[in-house]
């Protein structure tokens, strides 16, 4: 049941990404082009998602266990540090170049588009490079 539920959450999330326009790089870049012909659609994606999300996180705060009886795994790190800023800058710049962020890249990869597969493969390589760099440069966090 738990496995089926995780699968369904992934499915709903992915369908939401497609319906919203997030899987179309030209639409994403049209949204990021605030100084040109600006397409504000994707602001509504974030607005709609956060409106629903806020209720659920407020509800989660009042509970001690999740629906399946397990613990809540919430991030404990609240430091605003160089890692956060540099990582976000790098991500934002890459998002602006290709028009893909991780979720839409994976959904588009699954639909078999060659460009999306190329991007997603490079993204996976980037994540592996990060892991390897963490292990050689820093102690495990």
């Amino acid at each position, binding site marked *: 049941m738990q496995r*089926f539920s*995780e699968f369904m*959450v*992934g*499915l*709903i*999330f992915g*369908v*939401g990404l497609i319906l*919203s326009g997030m899987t179309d*790089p030209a*639409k994403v870049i049209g949204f990021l*082009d605030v100084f*040109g012909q600006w*397409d504000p*659609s994707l602001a*509504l*994606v*974030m*607005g*709609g998602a*956060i409106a*629903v*999300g*806020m209720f*659920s996180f407020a509800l989660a705060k009042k509970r001690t266990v999740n629906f399946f009886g*397990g613990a809540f*795994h919430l*991030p404990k790190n*609240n430091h605003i540090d160089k*890692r*956060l800023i*540099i*990582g*976000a800058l790098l*991500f*934002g710049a*890459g*998002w*602006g*170049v290709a028009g*893909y*962020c*991780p*979720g839409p*890249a*994976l*959904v*588009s*990869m*699954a639909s078999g588009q060659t*460009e*999306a597969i*190329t*991007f997603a*493969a*490079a993204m*996976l*390589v*980037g994540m592996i490079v990060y892991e390897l760099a963490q292990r050689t440069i820093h102690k495990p966090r």
Partner: protein
Amino acid sequence: MIDWAHFTPWASLSGGILIGVASALFILLHGRILGISGILGGLLPPSAGDATWRITFLLGLFSAPLAFNALAPAGFMQMPRIDASYTMLIVAGLMVGIGTRYGSGCTSGHGVCGLSRLSLRSLIATGTFMVAGFATVYIIRHIL
């Protein structure tokens, strides 16, 4: 100037609500933050006892195009319009992969879940990647 010709308020709002519903179900049912870069990055490499939920979630995500094409009244998932060359796609993919792991999140984890739970850290991250995206598109579209 607003590009009214490409403005899709209802589809984008409905899609956003579905994204919010999925994030809500994930935290309430499973106690997890729905952040794609974190879910995926946790599998590189997979660790015992912490891999199955990531894989079942991702299998659902991968099934979305099929489900959308079967359900959508308007027909098939729109063909993406991509301007970037293959070289740029690879460079951008590497940046997104490294950046999201280094900054501990992407549009879903920081942008949707982080803002929903009023995390200052996620607000700073989201503001930063949005501004970086605006600046990058400005440079590519209007300067280069």
